[in-house]
């Protein structure tokens, strides 16, 4: 009996990861309305002229996210004028690490001079919807009619340690592909990151 319970227990663990993969390339993404660091609500519908969006789940405390701060600013500066602005979202429950609080998000955005909205996903609904699991994690969305289609997911590039040693700037290549009317290749990549800290049921 004990073994049966254990087997059920183990199967549940293994299954839980298989179910929540979130958006895949080709999926229709839903919009959102979240509070920016300036206190104002930001929605993707606020950008009628955009061709799409680079939605990046990131946060303050994660060393991998920190390693990419400057590169995210560069991506925004380069591609916002071309129609693909960066929308950064922090979904971490600040209870795990006070560094990820809304107040500290404001501080970080000012310190680094973020050129893009840095939104607080307080209820974690957006991160659950997108299936974002770690920081930093990218969802590149392209406007297609009235829809937002996921065209690329994953990493920003292939070297978190050293921006100068990058051989494949995955995200930039993906946006360039979309701008050229092509499909990004690869359309999905992976990278190590900090897990997004979900609220615990109380």
């Amino acid at each position, binding site marked *: 009996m004990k073994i049966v319970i254990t087997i059920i227990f183990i199967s549940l663990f*293994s299954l839980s*990861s298989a179910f929540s993969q979130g958006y895949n390339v080709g999926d229709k993404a839903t919009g959102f309305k979240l509070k920016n660091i300036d206190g104002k609500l930001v929605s993707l519908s606020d950008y009628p002229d955009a061709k799409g969006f680079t939605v990046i789940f990131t946060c303050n405390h994660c060393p991998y996210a920190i390693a990419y701060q400057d590169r995210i600013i560069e991506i925004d500066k380069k591609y916002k004028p071309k129609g693909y602005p960066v929308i950064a979202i922090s979904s971490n429950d600040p209870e795990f690490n006070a560094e990820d609080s809304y107040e500290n998000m404001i501080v970080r955005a000012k310190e680094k001079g973020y050129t893009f909205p840095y939104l607080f996903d307080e209820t974690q609904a957006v991160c659950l919807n997108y299936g974002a699991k770690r920081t930093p994690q990218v969802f590149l969305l392209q406007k297609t009619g009235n829809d937002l289609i996921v065209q690329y997911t994953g990493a920003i590039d292939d070297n978190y340690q050293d921006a100068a040693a990058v051989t494949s700037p995955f995200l930039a290549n993906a946006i360039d592909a979309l701008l050229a009317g092509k499909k990004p290749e690869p359309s999905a990549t992976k990278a*190590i990151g900090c897990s997004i800290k979900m609220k615990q049921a109380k």
Partner: protein
Amino acid sequence: MIVRHNIIAKLITMRVITLFLFSVLLFCQNVFAQAGKEKPVQVVNFDQLEPHLHHNNDTVYLINFWATWCAPCIKELPAIKAVEEKYANEKFKVLLVSLDLPNELSSRLQPFIKSKNITSDVILLNDPNQNRWINKVDPDWLGEIPFTLIYGKHFRESYSRTFTFEELDSIINLKLNLP
């Protein structure tokens, strides 16, 4: 005669004291040597790590991907240590694969291992092209840590979660007692 006896007594006392001090010194040296004798942390790329993920024998392997900056990883380290100790005499092996920055090996990882008294084998994986190797560990893994692979000759399971001792214990116990 009395004087001579006194001198001998003094000499003996001094020798005993010297011997005692010498032993204390030896003992201390030993203790310090033990404390300073940490397991070296090997720094490897993925190709060098890969054989550790595919042993084909009767042992149950637990491979845990972690980092010192990952709070949920640190939280489960005592649980991993406890199962390792519980099954020390069984065919069970733990390998901790650190994803810390390679340039923080001596400033952060090694002091951490010492202060937390980590006795498991630790390897630092220095392979920045993660997109190349994450799928080779597990196609379902998105790259978040902690991430734990538990495998043996006839099974292979991966877990994207933080374990308690009880949870790990029940899994390892079951795997070690497979028919």
